[in-house]
Structures are given as structure tokens and as C-alpha cells.
């Protein structure tokens, strides 16, 4: 074969090997036949043929925000255990069970819940979750759990489990998958920023921050009938709970249906609008009729001790403190 053709073929193989991640094996600067055929050799030494999986034991009460394998092994009866999962706002969680060794007939169970339960309240609320409540549970003991891989609808999920006999246990593999249109999010951090978009869907999406924060709305774009003209006159104060709007909720639980509305905004706005919410949980909830594309961009930062004390001093009611 001509030198020119050999060079071109070598370039092609070089690009292919770079794409497959084996370019680091090319140490030679000359185009030789040995160099060419070494790439095609299936016995090329790989530095690792197995992907790295993070592993650690699972505790009876645990919180996981990393992917990996988590092994639960009971050394004594554990009757009330739960593990919470949380991912980035734009991700959902996939849980896969393997090596499950529990005695369902004795009362052991292993259930995945699509959301979080805290103090008897659930997030997302019944109204905001796409599935009815019974379908949010996947029970391993129900007909051997036909679905070994369970995927959440939002960035949080959890499992409940109970084992009576020692040496029972199971292994879960947690993965995070991309969610292109995140709806119903719990923030992992006490500060950050987010843009929530509801594209032509009749749904309500909540962004929950489980810290006392100051929220600053940077931009709100709400489609509204007649919004390109003068604002629609309303006969009731506020948004009246109809149409497309944003509401800011505050409360000491995670269920948005049981939280107090702190503010609601019915019209698009640009420019920062700030609000301090001294509650354990502050939620930005976007209500959408499905007729428009609604978008809200906001950022949040935690309130320091001084600001919290000031808020408490200003408010006489026994409610989480707003300014």
C-alpha cells in the first residue's frame, strides 16, 4: 500500500481509537505496521475493564446523594429504617434491588416511595404528584416486585425497610438520570439559583428549600390572556387561585398543600423581588394552566441568625416569620 494511503488509514484508526478511549496506548511517533495492528489487537492491555462503582454499607437511617451500591446487612432486628435519596434538581433517581434476603411472611418489608415522607407529610403533595398515592409505593414483597428497577418522578425518593432476623439484608444500586423538565424539587443546598419552566403542561411544580432563606425572584414570565395589552382587571385580590401564577409558600412541613401562602404573583415581572421567609421550609410553586409556557428564575440564600431573630421580633403570631 502507498505511503499516502497508509498515513490516511493510520489517521482514521487514530481518530477511532481516540473516540474509544484507547489513544493513550499510542506512544510511537512513526507510522509502522506494528503500531497499526496493535490497535486492532483484542489483547491490548486495558487499565481497567470495569467501571468504578462507589460502595458502602447502608445505615438504618441514611441519606444518599451519590450514585453507587449500598449494602444493608442487619446484625439485629431493625424494625424502623428509612433511607432518603436526593439528586440534583435536574435529575431523577433510579433504585435497583439485588441480593434481597428478607422474610416477607414474617413481616419484613422493603418499599420504595416516590417522594419524601417527613413528620407524617409527603413531598410532593397528593395534588402535585403525577401518580396516585398507592402507585407511589413499590413493595418488594408484593408478588416479588416485578419491577426491580424503580425510577422516581422527581429528584427525591426514599425506601422504608424492616427486617426481623439478623443476617437479613439487601443491596441497592442508586443511579441518577437526567430529567429535562424538572418539576417538584427539593434543594440539596441552602443557597443557589434555579429556573423552573413549565412548557404547556397543566401541572403545578414546587421548588422546596428546607432552610430559612431570602428568596429573590429575578424574572417571572407568565403567559396570560390579554397579557400583551393592559393587565387584566381582577375583581378579587391576589391571583384568586386561577390561571397561571407563582406562589411563595412557607411552613414547617414538607407538604405544600398544608403550607401557608406568603405571596403570590400573577403577572410577569423583571427585576429582583425579594422576600425573607423564616420558616423551616420555603417553597416556590408555579401553577400552570397548560395554555402557556411559564418560567420563573430565582435565587436564594440562607438567613443568618441575626436576620432570623429580627424576623421573630417583628412578628407577634406563632407562625414562621415573613418579611
Amino acid at each position, binding site marked *: 500500500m502507498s505511503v499516502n494511503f497508509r498515513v*490516511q488509514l493510520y489517521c*482514521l484508526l487514530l*481518530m*477511532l481509537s481516540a*473516540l*474509544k*478511549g484507547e489513544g*493513550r496506548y499510542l506512544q510511537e511517533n512513526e507510522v509502522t505496521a506494528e503500531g497499526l495492528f496493535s490497535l486492532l489487537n483484542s489483547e491490548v492491555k486495558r*487499565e*481497567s*475493564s*470495569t*467501571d*468504578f462503582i*462507589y*460502595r*458502602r454499607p447502608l*445505615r*438504618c*437511617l*441514611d*441519606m*444518599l*446523594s*451519590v450514585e*453507587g451500591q449500598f449494602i444493608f446487612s442487619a446484625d439485629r432486628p431493625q*424494625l*424502623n*429504617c*428509612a433511607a*432518603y435519596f*436526593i439528586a440534583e434538581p435536574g435529575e431523577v433517581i433510579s433504585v435497583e434491588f439485588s441480593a434481597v434476603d428478607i422474610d416477607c411472611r414474617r413481616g419484613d*418489608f422493603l*418499599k420504595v*416511595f416516590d417522594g419524601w*415522607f*417527613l*413528620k*407524617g407529610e*409527603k413531598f410532593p403533595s*397528593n395534588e402535585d404528584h403525577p401518580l396516585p*398515592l*398507592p402507585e407511589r*409505593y413499590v413493595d418488594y414483597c408484593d408478588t416479588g416486585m416485578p419491577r426491580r428497577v424503580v425510577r422516581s418522578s422527581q429528584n427525591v425518593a426514599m425506601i*422504608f425497610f*424492616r427486617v426481623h432476623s439478623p443476617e437479613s439484608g439487601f443491596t441497592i444500586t442508586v443511579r441518577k438520570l437526567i430529567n429535562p423538565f424538572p418539576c417538584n424539587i427539593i434543594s*440539596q*443546598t441552602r443557597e443557589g439559583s434555579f429556573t423552573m419552566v413549565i412548557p404547556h403542561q397543566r401541572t403545578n411544580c414546587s421548588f422546596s428549600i*428546607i*432552610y430559612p432563606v431570602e428568596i429573590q425572584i429575578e424574572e417571572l414570565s407568565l403567559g396570560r390572556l390579554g397579557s400583551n395589552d393592559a393587565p387584566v382587571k381582577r375583581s378579587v385580590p391576589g391571583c384568586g387561585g386561577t390561571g397561571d401564577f407563582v406562589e411563595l409558600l412557607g*411552613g*414547617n*412541613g414538607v407538604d405544600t*398543600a*398544608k403550607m*401557608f*401562602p406568603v405571596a403570590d404573583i400573577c403577572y410577569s415581572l423583571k427585576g429582583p423581588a425579594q422576600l425573607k421567609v423564616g420558616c*423551616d*421550609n420555603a417553597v416556590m410553586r408555579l401553577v400552570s394552566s397548560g395554555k402557556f409556557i411559564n418560567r420563573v428564575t430565582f435565587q436564594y440564600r440562607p438567613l443568618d441568625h441575626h436576620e432570623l431573630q429580627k424576623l421573630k421580633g417583628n412578628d407577634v403570631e406563632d407562625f414562621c416569620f415573613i418579611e
Partner: protein
Amino acid sequence: MKLAFLVFTVVLLVAVLPRYESRAIENPGAVQSASSDPQSDLQKLSLPILLRLGEEYFLRLGSANQNPQVFMPPDASSTTVKRALQLQLTQRLLQGKVANIRRFASSNSDQLDDSMERGKRTDDPPISLDLTFHLLREVLEMARAEQLAQQAHSNRKMMDIFGK
């Protein structure tokens, strides 16, 4: 000839799309020995947080508990101490009552018919966990620390690979 070769190359590239998983990893032996490092680091990190958790919970429930257990022997190993804290913390959680405080807004006061009663029963979680926001934030911060340590470990490995 060159154009034909270029077209052939593009078609071949499209046909052999790279996988998106990162495969720039060292040999498995090194992985196994190195993987224990971030985990032991994380366990060391989690110990002071668990200590704080335990103290916090004891302060909260100390008055209600007539016979407080011995916290820990002074010469216990770190793993024993950690395990003891975990067990005691879990025990405290299990002993606590279900905190099911419902704050009713004025608009929600008319939801006490039979269907809501049935709904409440299925609404209850399979396990009663007396977990406060404060404890939830603590375990969340532990999980974040674990995630950051894992990310740092992964970045270090990537830099080792690219440095070759």
C-alpha cells in the same frame, strides 16, 4: 480521492459513536485500595457530625428519659463509638412519638369527612419516623460531604489519567 476518504471517515465516525461513560480509570487493584480511602475519610468526617447529632438529640430528649444510657466508654474504638452513636440515635428516633402536627389554613378546615379519614390511613407512611427538619438537614449535609469527597476523588483520578 481525498473528498471520498473524508466522507468515508465521517460515516465511520457516525457509525462508531463513543459511549458516554467515562472509562479513564486506573487498574482495578488501585481502585480497590483507593476506594477505601474516601470511604474511611468520609467515616472520619461523619463521626463528629454524628457526635453532634447524638448530643443534640440527647439534649432534646434528656428530660423525658429517666434512665439515660451510658454514652460511651472512654476507651472505645472509633468504629465502636460511631456504631454506638448510630444505634442510640436510631433508638431515640424510634422511641419518639410520631410528630404529625397539621397546621390547617382557614381554607382547609372543611376536609374532615369520611373520605378524608380513609385517605389519612393510606396517607400514613409504613414506618413512623420522628425526624425533625434539623436532623434531616444534618444527614443531608453528611450526604453532601460524601458527594463532594466522591467528586474530589473522581477528579483526582481523572487528572492522574490525563497527566500521562
